[in-house]
């Protein structure tokens, strides 16, 4: 681990000001992802700005009838919140499907959105990896590589990896927005749809956040109702990243929304696929996964996604 300086900020303005003063600074919240990556030499920030003292740990109601979730609300607290359980059960279910109880106690809302990929080659600093070291190549795309955990759609030649968050898949289906603050005082409300990037030629950028930009909160629009289900398929019954996960919101009239995890560099949703919901799982996936480029080891993710959605539709009916 490279030596770093450590700073505690006491409010959001101070945190972003500090970040602007200290090039190469990173925010640290629960530390469940960033610290692991620092110990492994994958991330090497020169400065850490601890945001746990910012007071952004409340869930409040918005004038629009939704919820504003402070970035420091833990995954445990968010999934257990009565309003979330009642009005956004999809979010509760998705969070509970992720990590372990201990990790969710530490993991924060903003940190969860910014967790990095679980591509095995990203974790070995001896391997070429465009996401870790831009321009070094992609170890996962050479013959003989282990490709089972990688993505099937939205990937690029430069990077084949997925985004591992479960929470983000639910937030995508719920049309959440990410609220940020920059050192110049600018605030943005970024729709989750455009928050995570596709890798293209620059897989090192997972999101559209700018250096030093702080996530302050996530906003949920007014509840949309319907049956809300999240199902995560993995090789063991718990405590594993998704092979495929499916978020479904199904309205009584058969319309609804579908988002996928485990298949793409971002939570995967398409309006034209949502529109196909009344015609069943096959019709949805035809649109949702159109243009997929599965790899030798992960082509099964496509039928698996279809089958998992079919199971959810059956359960929701």
């Amino acid at each position, binding site marked *: 681990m490279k030596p770093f300086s450590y700073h505690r900020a006491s409010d959001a303005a101070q945190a972003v000001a500090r970040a602007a003063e200290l090039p190469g600074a990173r925010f640290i919240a629960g530390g469940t992802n960033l610290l692991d990556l620092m110990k492994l030499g994958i991330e090497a920030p020169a400065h850490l700005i601890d945001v746990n003292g910012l007071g952004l740990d409340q869930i409040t109601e918005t004038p629009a009838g939704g919820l504003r979730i402070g970035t420091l609300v833990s995954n445990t607290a968010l999934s257990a919140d009565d309003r979330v359980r009642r009005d956004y059960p999809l979010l509760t279910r998705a969070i509970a499907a992720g990590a372990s109880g201990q990790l969710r106690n530490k993991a924060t809302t903003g940190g969860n959105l910014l967790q990095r990929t679980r591509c095995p080659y990203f974790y070995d600093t001896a391997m070429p990896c465009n996401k870790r070291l831009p321009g070094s190549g992609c170890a996962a795309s050479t013959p*003989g590589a282990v490709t089972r955990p990688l993505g099937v759609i939205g990937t690029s030649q430069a990077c084949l990896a997925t985004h591992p968050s479960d929470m983000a898949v639910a937030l995508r289906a719920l049309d959440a927005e990410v609220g940020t603050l920059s050192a110049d005082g600018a605030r943005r409300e970024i729709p989750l749809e455009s928050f995570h990037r596709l890798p293209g030629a620059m897989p090192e950028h997972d999101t559209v956040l700018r250096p030093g930009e702080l996530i302050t909160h996530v906003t949920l629009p007014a509840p949309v109702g319907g049956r809300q289900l999240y199902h995560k398929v993995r*090789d063991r019954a718990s405590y594993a990243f998704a092979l495929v996960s499916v978020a479904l919101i199904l309205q009584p009239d058969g319309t609804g929304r579908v988002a996928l995890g485990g298949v793409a560099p971002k939570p995967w949703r398409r309006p034209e696929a949502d529109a196909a919901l009344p015609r069943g799982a096959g019709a949805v996936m035809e649109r949702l996964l159109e243009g997929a480029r599965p790899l030798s080891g992960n082509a099964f993710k496509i039928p698996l996604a279809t089958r998992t959605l079919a199971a959810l539709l059956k359960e929701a009916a």
Partner: protein
Amino acid sequence: MMDFDQPAGDSRIDLSRILGQPATRIDGPLKVSGAARYAYEQHDVLEGQKVGYPVLATIARGRITAMRTTAAAAMPGVIGIVTAPEVGKMPKPFAFNVAPLFGGDEVVHYHQAIAVVVADSFEEARAAAARVEVDYAGETGGFDLHGLWPERREDARDPVARVGDFEAAFAAAPVRLDHDYSTPAHSHAMMEPHATLAHWQDGRLTVWTSNQMVEWARTGLASTFGLSEDQVRVISPYVGGGFGTKLVLRADAILAAQAARRLGCPVKVALPRPAVMNNTSHRAATLQRIRIGAEADGRITAIAHTALSNTLPGGRGENAVDQSRWFYAGAHRLFVHHLGEMHLPESNAMRAPGEAPGLMALEIAMDEMAEKLRMDPVAFRIRNDTQVSPEDPDKPFSDRHFSECLTRGAEAFGWSDRPLRPGSRRDGDWMLGWGVAGAYRGGPAMTSGARLRLQPSGRLLVETSMTDIGTGSYTILAQTAAEVLGLPLEAVEVRLGDSDLPASAGSGGQWGAASATAGVYAAGLALRTEIARRLGVNDADTLVFEAGTVRGSDGARSLADLAAEGEIVAEDAIRFGDFRKRQIVATFGAHFVELGVHALTGEIRLRRMLAVCDAGRILNPVTARSQVIGGMVMGVGAALMEEAAIDTGRGFFPAHDLAGYEVPVHADIPVQEVIFLDTADASATPLKAKGVGELGLCGVAAAIANALYNATGVRVRDYPLTLEHYLDELPA
């Protein structure tokens, strides 16, 4: 030395009061409270301990052409760097080590240790290690076993065993099976990574380490560093799991000892978790072919098992065919074991080496064969059970109750109610399946010694180099000593894992419990003899040891009283005679499983598991059950998820942690039941006991594969049984 040179007769052990009782683990409270000090936590045994962090090769094969350490050496806290080229080639520590652990410029596998950076703190050592720069001249190598298989599967020129005329008998058999099976490489994935603290003083080396075999480790260190064995002391009181990867020395010990010697200070080295997968050892992947021919009545007439496994040149691979030689009858037999030389990291022993992957294949084949014969798979196995070696009718099994395992299990599991047709039973969207498989594992025993010291306080110390790798050695050895000396369990204290103590069998191959209790039994008899001598009694057997007293014709005296003048010490060891080799001493079991497969998503959820074990006298039903259910959990892993996937282009295992290499979690494990048959194998040990630690794993994965078939009608012959193997064949 006590020679065990004929089967045990009736003895007081048959009437045991403490042995065989369900005592809970003596070391349990220490472990759950953190008071048990593991190798890396020996903070107070020495002043001035420094921390070493390994530098690992990042090519699979080749040569180091340059190593630049100046920048690393200038990092804060760094005390020194020891590099493999500067140390030069070192002798291989032990016959069972395959890859070099350290020294020289040749790289034979990915993440081979090539330097160790020593600093004041772990963090400083790790930061500096990241700054060591290495240039290599890489070479290509063979990394894909599948390329060798088409040729090897046909090649029977050099069989392990051949009896009768397999080819002719197979061709003539009315019912035949011929299929290929595969098992992937497995990682031991034990909880405690390898770790060692090394210290030199006056030319003597002491290591606190995590090792299953204290004597082997001592021999290995002595030969590596050119010392005599009495110049080396190995201390390994607690081992946080080993599963075979800690049978022999690994790089942590060599790096720590090398650095401590060169830098003149105690050095400790733990392998970081990401190093465990490629730096240490793994269970080889196997490709297997099984052919079985049978008469219409279910009698096997011909059986052949061929397997190929990966190994570095000079290694032994994974012999997946041996259990098939002894498990089922059949006159015409052929067994072939091919080594596929590959340049992957070292494959070596892992829990039930050979049997675990061998039975994963064989016990699917038996299920398939039963189906072809329209027989109950339980009945088919019973039909082919044998009491003598299938290769030699004059060689009996010492004590074999395999059929009883099957019938007891079938009864307890309600097997008669099983779904007869695959895919015929449902619970909503869950397709239910039941499966059975047989288990076989040898019952080895090795020389083992102990010293017993009766204290003036009346307490008894038991000292042996035996290890407790989480298995319960502390507890069963205390029970053995208490039994023989007629003491309450609380009066016995057990000291383990130190090469200064009497040499023991160590822990491996499920020989530990049987051998080490026999060693303590021998020492116990020696102590009884010594006590008798002090009482002026010729025959210790005329004395009654009971409730802390010894009673003879002259009345009773307390043991404390006898030792009041000074401790009474006796030492002995057990040696196992050749008569054992004229029979087959082995353990047997049957596994039953019920599971559900989601008809849409293909997810598998186990519903219940049952194991019935025939393993001789059960020394402690609590610790034995824990061993068996732990084995069953490992079997669930092998069936459903465990795979050390190979990057066949680069020649390494890319999964470096327990998120990438999955083992079962609690949510994967259903109700587990274990039944021990009430057996006692007089040829096994004086206590008539055999091991169970590996038996519990054997056959489990095949029972699950068979249940998957019964649930879905899809036969999967490649492990792990992940859903891509059968998803497309499930109902839409």
